[in-house]
């Protein structure tokens, strides 16, 4: 029932019961999957060995062989004689053998890798010498993502990722299945997850979808046998966006805006200035070009690669609603689809860096529970990498409870984004504390409590508003240092699960308020759940937490 002891957490690495194991049907991953992992070796092989050999063949040259070696010195040992006999044939064969030998571990990994699914668990068994058996309970699964790295995509494969709600946040993966199979399995399992979760909470709305609802993606049924089709599908996904059944697009971030937002960050502008200065120095001061570039190359390369990475990952970002919750889809070379069931969102954060005020852009990110530290965490928690105020106002109602359900009103949200000082339910720091310390940020630092939410506003240059439901707060911490004691203020830190936006810090509240707030917040964190447990009071709220 709980994850309070380590042994009981959602993942376990213990051996499975024998009888339980026998009822399972174990399946292997797709036979092409070793190729996905070993693609680097294959490419190196093709470029290093095959290409020169082919070129030599066409040029009519003899490939470089041990034969030369053999003719210079007469063969002494049996080995060299053997070599002499085979001549130029030897080297490619040896290369191919070594190559195949290198591939063997990958195939062995694949051979010993099995997974199984039953009504309530997912099992993955792997390892030849060090066997590991992992299992994830479906009712603890927060989301199931289909992820497609480039190589897997070319081969028509996909990976299934299970995000599980435990503090450690490691995810269970099934690598790799055919794309169609992966989508089918995900849809099937999502329905099972929903049924399991609604089964444990009979008062919840339950799932309207019948099990095994048909695969909805265009292109998934039209078998993807040809590379051309796959590439076409890739292009379609990237440039037109896939729509599943019941999906509705909320926002789309044009590539131009993403680029613009990247260049409107302070760091980038400083580095650009540096580059311009460098150019200026070269032209007017006649400084040696090579020395200048060499000394700044690392910075420049770092900048370009960081920009490229963000552009590549954030390419064609879309947010859609679907029966499974919110979905984001993004990426140029790797298109990632992330499903965010609503109960999984722990906290919402809106930020506006200084320069984005010129264009009126905002960024919305959410903290998620059990977010694995995978390679694609860049946009994982972002609902809106960069968007206009209109986009923002479309998204916030989807993730923030509204006034009638104990949440924040529209005015309150607007005040959280723009206003300073107290008002609209916000309590700013007292003037006594404010006048002496940190008087830049102080007039925006404020908090607001609603029956269901804690809103924290802050930041003078980068404006921030973070919104955390009381029920998601994991722990509270009050701190006071010597300076705080002198001027009578304290810091309250509120922590929610998830790595992206983990804590919203209420800095510089006067100590008495902070103390009262700690008590109130502690009450609300427990109280809110009791209220949610009462049937029929806030059915809407219950629906929201049905996927908890």
């Amino acid at each position, binding site marked *: 029932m709980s994850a309070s002891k380590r042994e009981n*957490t959602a993942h376990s690495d213990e051996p499975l019961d024998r009888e339980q194991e026998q009822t399972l049907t174990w399946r292997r991953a797709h036979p092409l999957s070793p190729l996905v992992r070993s693609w680097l070796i294959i490419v190196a092989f093709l470029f290093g060995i095959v290409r020169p050999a082919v070129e030599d063949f066409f040029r009519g040259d003899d490939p470089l062989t041990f034969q030369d070696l053999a003719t210079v010195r007469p063969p002494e040992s049996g080995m060299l004689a053997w070599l002499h006999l085979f001549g130029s044939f030897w080297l490619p064969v040896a290369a191919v053998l070594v190559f195949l030998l290198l591939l063997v571990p990958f195939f062995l990994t694949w051979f010993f890798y099995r997974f199984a699914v039953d009504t309530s668990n997912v099992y993955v068994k792997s390892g030849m010498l060090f066997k590991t058996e992992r299992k994830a309970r479906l009712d603890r699964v927060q989301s199931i993502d289909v992820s497609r790295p480039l190589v897997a995509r070319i081969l028509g494969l996909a990976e299934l990722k299970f995000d599980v*709600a435990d503090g450690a946040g490691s995810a269970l993966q099934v690598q790799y299945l055919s794309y169609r199979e992966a989508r089918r399995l995900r849809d099937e399992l999502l329905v099972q997850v929903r049924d399991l979760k609604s089964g444990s909470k009979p008062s919840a709305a339950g799932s309207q979808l019948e099990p095994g609802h048909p695969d909805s993606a265009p292109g998934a049924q039209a078998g993807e046998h040809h590379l051309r089709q796959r590439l076409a599908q890739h292009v379609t996904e990237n440039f037109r966006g896939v729509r599943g059944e019941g999906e509705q697009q909320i926002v789309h971030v044009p590539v131009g805006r993403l680029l613009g937002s990247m260049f409107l960050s302070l760091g980038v502008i400083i580095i650009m200035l540096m580059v311009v200065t460098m150019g200026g120095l070269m032209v007017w001061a006649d400084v040696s070009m090579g020395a200048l570039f060499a000394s700044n190359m690392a910075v420049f390369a770092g900048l370009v690669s960081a920009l490229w990475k963000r552009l590549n990952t954030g390419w064609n970002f879309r947010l859609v609603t679907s029966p499974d919750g919110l979905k984001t889809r993004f990426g140029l070379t790797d298109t990632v689809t992330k499903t965010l069931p609503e109960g999984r969102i722990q906290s919402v954060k809106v930020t506006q860096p200084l320069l984005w005020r010129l264009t009126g852009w905002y960024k919305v990110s959410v903290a998620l529970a059990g977010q694995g530290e995978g390679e694609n965490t860049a946009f994982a928690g972002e609902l809106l990498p960069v968007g206009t105020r209109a986009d923002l106002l479309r998204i916030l109602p989807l993730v923030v409870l509204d006034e009638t359900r104990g949440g924040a009103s529209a005015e309150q949200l607007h005040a959280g984004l723009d206003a300073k000082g107290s008002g609209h339910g916000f309590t700013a720091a007292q003037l006594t504390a404010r006048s002496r310390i940190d008087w830049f940020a102080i007039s925006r630092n404020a908090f607001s409590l609603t029956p269901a939410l804690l809103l924290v506003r802050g930041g003078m240059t980068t404006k921030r508003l973070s919104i955390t439901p009381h029920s998601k707060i*994991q*722990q509270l911490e009050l701190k006071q240092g010597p300076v705080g004691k002198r001027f009578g203020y304290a810091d309250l830190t509120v922590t929610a699960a998830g790595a992206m936006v*983990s804590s919203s810090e209420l800095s510089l509240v006067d100590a*008495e308020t902070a103390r009262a707030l700690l008590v109130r917040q502690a009450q609300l964190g427990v109280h809110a759940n009791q209220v949610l447990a009462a049937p029929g009071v806030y059915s809407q709220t219950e629906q929201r937490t049905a996927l908890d």
Partner: protein
Amino acid sequence: MTENRLIEDNDQGQAVRPPAVATPWQQAQATETVSSPAFTPTLPPLDLDGLGKDFIDPADIEWKRVSPKYLKVRMISRAIWSLIMIALACLPLLFTEVLGWWNMPLWLSVSLAAVMVVWQIWLTIIVRRQVRALGYSERAEHLLTRKGIMFRQVRAVPYGRIQFIDMSSGPIENMVGLSHLDIKTAGGASTVLPGLDRAEAQRLREILTDLSETKMVGL
């Protein structure tokens, strides 16, 4: 409402629920739950306790203190560390004056060592204060911990959010029969309760584990 009572142990190490001890914190919670089964449109204003601004402990909390033996543990580990740090700070003096490898002015190397000695003495002096400032309290729904005098910290961990609890003890703690608990939630740093007698640590762990299971809230 019986779940909202302070939890104490009995001989079986099972959680039992003794009659209520009316502290303001619990009263406030009880009245709020009774009078407002649903969300009220607005929350009542914060109850300021009017006790001033130069401390942060919530009012009327009786803190349980750590075992006095913990002072010994801290002093021993402090002594070891102090010796290491002072030895390190004396290295420049050794290298320049005795071995002649370095060429550092005498006043610099001497004052480096002197500053380190003073700093370590200061750290040793405040150990007693630090240990005395440690405390924890099992509330109706939360575990409260406090520490620090100059840099104070009060932390509240709801029982229902505890993910797991580790009980462990280092070599010095082992000598005097103490343990510490590591309490982890799904977010943020883990809360460490040091200097508990082994029996008390075991009792706390059992109770916290039970409570976290009965009050568990999904993420």
